[in-house]
């Protein structure tokens, strides 16, 4: 067992180590994706309103 196989096996702890890193990816990646998509949605909505509501184009 060497190289990539050895790395993936994590000395027999693969079933604990990889799910821990996967959990980090899911939780933190999820928070990031959720926050960024909400931000983009708000930006788009504000732009739309500023186009349609006259007098709204003030900073």
């Amino acid at each position, binding site marked *: 067992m060497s190289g990539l196989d050895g790395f993936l096996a994590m000395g027999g702890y693969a079933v604990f180590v990889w799910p821990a890193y996967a959990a980090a990816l899911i939780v933190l990646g999820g928070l990031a994706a959720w926050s960024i998509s909400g931000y983009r949605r708000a930006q788009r909505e*504000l732009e739309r309103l500023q186009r349609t509501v006259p007098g709204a184009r003030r900073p």
Partner: protein
Amino acid sequence: MQRFANPARFMRLSGAILPWCAGATALLLAVGLYLALLVAPPDYQQGEAVRIMFVHVPAAWMASFVYAILALSSAVALIWRHPLADIAAQSAAPLGAGFTLLCLVTGSLWGEPMWGTWWVWDARLTSVLVLFFLYLGYIALVNAFDEPVRGARAGAILALVGVVNLPIIKFSVDWWNTLHQPASVFRIGGPTIAASMLWPLLIMALGFTLLFITLLLIRMRTALLAAKIRALRMAEVERAAESAVLRHRAAS
């Protein structure tokens, strides 16, 4: 502080630093993951399972750190009625809940091979679970009122009461007999952890901190944009009502 308090100034400043924070986050997490998975040595007792530490410990630090931010913002909101303080607290809460959940999940995945159990009701684990429920309670309470101002006040009071849990978490491993090991980094007399593991840990922790700052700024900016959107919609509705009245008068 007061100088950054103005929402317009906050939008300008946060817009300027946001790309730098995001870039630094990506860089630190990439380097941190490389060090944690490939460079740090396996532990002489725990073997490769020790690599869970590089996610678990930074997540645990962030869980408490973000709660301190939440409580501090809540105090500022209650005392000075600062418009940005409530927004900061409400933006931080889901992020803190996420870090706490990650801490609990990775702790469980570490506990099973090392302690032989996924969970024990000992002081450290239980106090962190209480922290998770404090976050959820705060989020639920803030959204439970029709009037946002009242929700924010109730949430801020809960956040401040919950601060008592922070020293309990920190000192739980000293005050009670727990399965959880005592502090090995932030302790009197300096860290007891080898430098080859301490560096990857600190870089991951810094990466988590910058990720939090980046997402906090994004969420606060979103909240300020949402306030602007509400104001514009209100204006739109008012104008529509006015023109309806005018049309009605012209017709009669």
